[in-house]
């Protein structure tokens, strides 16, 4: 008997019991759809974060205060004040870090910014004159923060497009004064719409000189981050070492394991995100896979009932010349067709649902969210569901093949 003929017999058997066949595969459909969704959304989240990290640029190095955390519960690194003005000066020194082209410290706090009666709470960034050019940010109107603003601790602010619109509407903002924490800041520049650049939403930007921010707004004398840009991608790794050496000297550290700072590159961050997201997705997929096993047991159940119900058919086929392996293949193939059909329907439903979810997420969470169909998951879904068909279909199919034709024909 050819595969084609076998396929005809098996599918005819399933079509005769259409509604039961559909109900039977529901478990597989749900399991595969869940796996597809988890993987599609996991991939979407990962891509979003990676895209943001990439936005920082591959020539950028981030220096953060605090020791590398050794375990999940170690939060000590979050609250340290080890990066200070002298570190900034040391890194800026070309003899220490020869491939450095620009550097900026970052201080940040969520504060209310107000103009007239409008007020908006947002992250106020204290940066150096190098920060905005580093991210390719240019003013649409006015100018950016300058060297003198930083040195002179001047009360000037550069606004992103959206925050400007919220405070000023369509009227001109440059030259006007906004209030941050009761202090007046003169708007010197407004940035055009640019969206997300790295971790920074440029449209919501409120940037002031870091010196001003430290002294008048945040009352701190340390930095939350120092961002360094190198002259080329090839020099990133060397520069990381230069920065480490520089900071160790400035902090009097001999033993690298006692570092009170961390230096990260874009590649580091991407690797970490990928591994975290990978682990998370794997966990969720494992949970979803349980429903596949449940679905497989459901199929086995129905196949056993079906074999009993069709005892007469089995006996008749044997009497008319079917071999045991003909019968075994027929019922095994029925189970596999069921599970593959379930797998394919599950993939379609899972893909549609994650497409929908992606559309919603790109509206609500971030416009950078994109749908990516997990091709590997689809392939795995089909393979796994056919394997489940074989595993859970084998027992009923063997029962069918082992039936004695006479018992089967006498069965009423």
């Amino acid at each position: 008997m050819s595969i084609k003929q076998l396929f005809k017999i098996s599918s005819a058997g399933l079509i005769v019991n259409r509604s039961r066949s559909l109900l039977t595969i529901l478990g597989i459909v749900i399991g595969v759809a869940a796996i597809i969704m988890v993987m599609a959304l996991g991939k979407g989240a990962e891509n979003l974060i990676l895209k943001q990290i990439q936005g920082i640029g591959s020539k950028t190095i981030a220096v953060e205060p605090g020791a590398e955390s050794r375990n999940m519960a170690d939060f000590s690194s979050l609250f340290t004040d080890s990066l200070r003005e002298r570190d900034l000066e040391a890194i800026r020194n070309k003899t220490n870090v020869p491939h450095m082209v620009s550097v900026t410290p970052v201080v940040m706090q969520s504060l209310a910014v107000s103009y007239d009666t409008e007020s908006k709470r947002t992250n106020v960034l204290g940066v150096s004159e190098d920060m905005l050019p580093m991210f390719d940010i240019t003013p649409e109107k006015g100018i950016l923060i300058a060297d003198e603003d930083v040195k002179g601790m001047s009360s000037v602010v550069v606004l992103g497009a959206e925050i400007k619109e919220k405070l000023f509407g369509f009227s001109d903002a440059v030259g006007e004064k906004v209030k941050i924490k009761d202090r007046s800041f003169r708007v010197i520049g407004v940035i055009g719409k640019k969206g997300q650049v790295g971790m920074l939403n440029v449209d919501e930007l409120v940037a002031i000189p870091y010196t001003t921010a430290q002294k008048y707004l945040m009352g701190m004398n340390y930095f939350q981050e120092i961002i360094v840009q190198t002259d080329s991608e090839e020099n990133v790794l060397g520069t990381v070492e230069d920065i480490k050496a520089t900071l160790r000297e400035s902090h009097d550290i001999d033993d690298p394991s006692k570092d009170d700072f961390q230096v990260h590159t874009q590649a580091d961050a991407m690797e970490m995100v990928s591994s975290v997201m990978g682990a998370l997705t794997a966990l969720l997929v494992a949970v979803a896979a349980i429903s596949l096993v449940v679905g497989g047991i459901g199929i086995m159940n129905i196949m056993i009932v079906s074999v009993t119900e069709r005892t007469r058919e089995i006996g008749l086929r044997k009497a008319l010349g079917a071999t045991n392996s003909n019968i075994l293949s027929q019922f095994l193939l029925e189970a596999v067709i069921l599970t593959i059909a379930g797998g394919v329907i599950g993939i379609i439903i899972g893909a549609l649902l994650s497409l929908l979810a992606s559309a919603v997420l790109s509206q609500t969470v971030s416009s950078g969210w994109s749908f990516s169909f997990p091709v590997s998951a689809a392939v795995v879904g089909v393979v796994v569901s056919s394997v489940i068909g074989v595993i859970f279909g084998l027992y009923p199919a063997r029962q069918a093949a082992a039936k004695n034709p006479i018992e089967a024909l006498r069965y009423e």
Partner: protein
Amino acid sequence: MALIEVERLEKHYGEGEERTDALCDISFKIDEGDFIAIMGPSGSGKSTLLHIMGFLDRPSSGIFRFEGKTIDEYSDDELAAIRNKKLGFIFQSFHLLPRTTVLENVKLPLVYSGIKESLWDEKARAAIEAVGLSHRISHDAVHLSGGEKQRVAIARSLVNDPKVVFADEPTGNLDSKSGQAVMEIIQDLNDKKGITVILITHETYTAEHAERIIRIKDGMIDNDSKVSNRHKASEFLK
């Protein structure tokens, strides 16, 4: 060598108190081209004997040979091939596949025959034609009358050009007119195609269409004799 040899055949069901002796010490031979009727009251073991001769069941003891070999001398796959190509079964209760057309029902033995699929349709249609059911070819088998169902079953038994046709009470569920039509077809199989026919019935009149009648009672042969005055089904219909 006889086509079918039965020697001291016994078949028991159950153990101890519940033991039933369905067949006891049965012996006979059937040659190729014979038309035999097996007669006996209900429960006398007719169907049991037929199942053993069709390699659907095993004897408890004694010997049944088909073409010189016993069931134990054939492999399972050889037995399936014999059932498929050399034997045709017409069962007491039709055994057609429900929700399946007449054509598909008749094709069923071809599926397991190794014959090219392109020839199936032609063969099945010829068999249906032979039993006069061409006008019902794409009907669902469930919706046919009893006589029509039995004719589908006959067409199915013929489709692979068997050597032997076993017919278990083929007219048992039919009125006399459609019963007669079925008997005419069966007699033609023997007369015109030379197929060996083994017919089971409990009616003397039906049995007298055969050349020889083996009567069994309580699982034992009561009488085995030639029919002196054979009925011709075709003549009756005229």
